[in-house]
């Protein structure tokens, strides 16, 4: 059977639910107008929802980007220390984040598309609300009771059908937003736990190793400086071969205690 006819029947059924059977057809114009306003409110709420969802994804992308940048710097630092394995590890983790980022970008595009559609739906509905507000008063004034029955009935059916359409458009966008929000929620949890992206701990891992190397370097430098100092103090130009006197005895016991 024809897709267009079947769909027409479905829209009709939805529309019938929206129709108010008022005694006075003129009254049904006002009721329809009220419903139209409610419908407009609903679209606007959906627009706000989708905008929030979009911002959330942007925030997640920013967080992941920052972590990726950090890993990039750490890879460089590791390489400058000659630790290629550590640099490789940092870059591998950065690549995993890049995948996440690409996924978020796709989601962002989808959310933005839904946002654009809803804004469009809201605009169209607003235009109809404005048009209907004037038209219903004209209709009330012009039609006799007999004419009103058919003419107003048709207009009310028409406006109700538009509301059904808007309702279906909202539902459609909402379904997509819901599934994206579920994914965004999962991403938030993963970001918080660090499980998926290994965001916090591994980055700190790499940082710890880098810091350790730096600390070791600093200790080595200090040691070298001390050695040089002692060598300069010693008349023979060499370190004393064995401890002589109280100060020399104290030194090893300090070392053992620490």
């Amino acid at each position, binding site marked *: 059977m*024809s*897709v*267009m*006819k*079947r*769909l027409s029947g479905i829209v009709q059924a939805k529309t019938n639910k929206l129709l108010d059977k008022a005694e006075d057809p003129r009254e049904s114009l006002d009721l329809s107008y009220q419903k139209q306003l409610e419908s407009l409110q609903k679209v606007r709420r959906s627009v706000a929802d989708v905008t929030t969802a979009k911002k959330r994804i942007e925030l997640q992308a920013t967080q992941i980007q920052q972590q990726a940048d950090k890993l990039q710097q750490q890879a460089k630092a590791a390489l400058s220390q000659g630790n290629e394995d550590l640099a490789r590890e940092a870059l591998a983790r950065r690549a995993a984040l890049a995948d996440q980022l690409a996924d978020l970008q796709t989601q962002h595009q989808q959310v933005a598309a839904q946002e654009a559609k809803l804004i469009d739906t809201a605009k169209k509905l607003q235009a*109809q609300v404005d048009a209907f507000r004037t038209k219903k008063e004209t209709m009330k004034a012009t039609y006799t009771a007999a004419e009103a029955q058919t003419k107003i009935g048709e207009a009310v059916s028409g406006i109700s*059908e*538009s509301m059904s359409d808007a309702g279906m458009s909202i539902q*459609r966008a909402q379904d997509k937003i819901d599934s994206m929000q579920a994914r965004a929620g999962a991403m938030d949890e993963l970001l918080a736990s660090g499980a998926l992206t290994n965001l916090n701990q591994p980055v700190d891992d790499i940082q710890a190793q880098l810091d350790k190397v730096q600390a070791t370097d600093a200790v080595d430098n200090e040691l070298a400086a001390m050695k040089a100092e002692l060598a300069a103090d010693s008349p023979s130009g060499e370190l004393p071969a064995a401890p002589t006197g109280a100060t020399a005895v104290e030194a090893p016991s300090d070392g053992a205690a620490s």
Partner: protein
Amino acid sequence: MIVRILGEAQYEVPDDHQGDLDALDAALVKAVDSGDEAAFLVALRALADDVRKKGQLLADDDFVPSHLVVPFADSSLEETRQLLADARPDEG
């Protein structure tokens, strides 16, 4: 006749264009029944384009019910199937 494209607008399509619309609709039915996504997308686009081209866009203050309804022009086969399956249960 009045044709609505869901999520888009209503158009007044000349009655003598009914035959062409029926042919495009038949192609859409065939694609839906066979589950051929590619054919479905082509058929849906062809139908929506035809309504836009042959039809006259209704003004914002034309409040009339439609005779025929075209699915959301960018919908997938699955989405359209669900839309059509929506039919029976919620009468009244």
